[in-house]
C-alpha cells in the first residue's frame, strides 16, 4: 500500500527535487489541527495516485530550513513538485475532491 513518507531537510533534495515522478509535500506540524484533519485524505490520495505521484510529509518544526526556503507561512500547505520545481501550491484544509481537481489539472 502506498503511504505518505516522511522527509527531512537532509533527504529533501534526493527524495523530492530529484524524483522522477511528481511529489506532493505536505508541510505540517503536530500542533496544527487542520493538518491532522487533512492527513487521512492524503493517505487515501497516496493510494489512489500510487505510481503517478509520490506523497511525502515534512514536519516544519523539525525541518525549518526547507520550510523557510519555500516561504511556508501557513500550514497545512501542499506543494506539488515536478522536475524539482513547485508547480502547485495549496494552502489550508481543502476537500478531497478539490485536491484531486488541482492535482489532475497539474498532471494533465
Amino acid at each position, binding site marked *: 500500500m502506498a503511504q505518505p513518507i516522511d522527509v527531512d531537510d537532509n533527504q529533501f533534495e534526493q527524495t523530492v527535487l530529484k524524483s522522477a515522478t511528481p511529489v506532493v509535500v505536505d508541510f505540517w*506540524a503536530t*500542533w*496544527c*489541527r*487542520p*493538518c*491532522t*484533519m*487533512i492527513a*487521512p*485524505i492524503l493517505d487515501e490520495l497516496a493510494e489512489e495516485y500510487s505510481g503517478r505521484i509520490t506523497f511525502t510529509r515534512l514536519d*516544519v*518544526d523539525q525541518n525549518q530550513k526547507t520550510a523557510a526556503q519555500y*516561504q*511556508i*507561512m*501557513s*500550514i*497545512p*500547505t501542499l506543494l506539488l513538485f515536478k522536475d524539482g520545481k513547485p508547480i502547485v*501550491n495549496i*494552502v*489550508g*484544509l*481543502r*476537500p*478531497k*475532491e478539490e485536491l484531486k481537481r488541482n492535482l489532475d489539472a497539474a498532471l494533465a
Partner: protein
Amino acid sequence: MKTEYDVIIIGGGPAGLSAGIYTARARLTSLLIEKNMVGGLIADAELVENYPGFPEGISGYDLTQLMEQQAQIFGLETLTAEVNGIKLKDGLKVVQTTQGEFTAKAVIIAGGCERTKLGVPGEVEFTGKGVSYCATCDAFFFRDQPVAIVGGGNSAISEALQLTKFASRVTVIHRRQELRATRILQEKAFAEPKIEFLWNTVVESIEGEDVVKRLQLRDVTTDEKSTLNVAGIFVSTGLNPSTNHLKGILALDEAGYIITNDKMETDAPGIFAAGDIRSSSIRQTIAAAGDGAVAAIYAERFITHAAK
C-alpha cells in the same frame, strides 16, 4: 454503497454529530455527509472551556473525536463528499453530492459556517504568505515579528493571546470601539503588554513583496489613513453560513442563515436545520449540540408520522 436512508445529516460538526447520535440511537438508518473530516470549526480551537462535563477544558479536536466515536457506536455512517443540492421527489429528499445521489425521508442540515474573509486587495494573493485564518497553526512562523489580528470576538481575542507566545507585538484591529469577546478574555488581553489595540479601524489593503510587509488602515470615525508594518495578518472577523447551494430551496434570512422554528423545522417539510447555520443560533458548541438533538427528535417524529 447504500443510497437510501431514513435520515441524512449534512455537516459533521457538533450539531451534525449530536443529531447522528440521536437518530442512530433511535434505530433510524443514518448517513452523515461531511466535505472535509468531521469536527467542524470548533475542531480548530486549542481549548474549549465552556462545554459542560470537561472541567479542565478539552481541545476542540478531542471533543469532536469523542462525539464521532459515540455516534459510530450507535451505527452512524459517514461519507466524505460535497453536497451540491437537495431536491424533493415523491415525498423523499434527494441529496446530490460529488459521490452521487442519496435519498432520505428526512434531512438535517448542520453545515455550519465558514470563516469570513476580509475581501480587501492583497488578501487572496498573500494567503499562505502572511495572511492566515488559523493562529494555532501559523503563530510559529512569526517568531519575534510583529503581527496583526482583525476582529473583536472570542476567537479573535483568544488567538491574539496565543500569538503573544511567538510574535514580538500583536495589534488587534477592530472596527468598533469595544470588544465583543467575553469579559474574562478581555481582561487577559488588556493585561498583556505585547497586545495593542487599534479601535474603529478597518484594513483597506494588504501589501508586500512575495510576503506581507504592511497594512493600509483607515479610521472609520475620522477617515484618517495610516500604515502598519507587519509580517503577518490573522483574520478572525466572524462567520458566514455555508448555504449558497440552498438558495431557492429553503427560506434564508438576509445574512443567508436558514430560518427554522423552535423544532428546527425549515419551511420544507422533513428538512431540518441545526447549529451555526441556523438563523438566531448563538454559535456555541453546546447550543449546536442541543440543536442537533432537537432536530433529530423532530425528524424521528416526522418519519413516524409520515409512515402512518
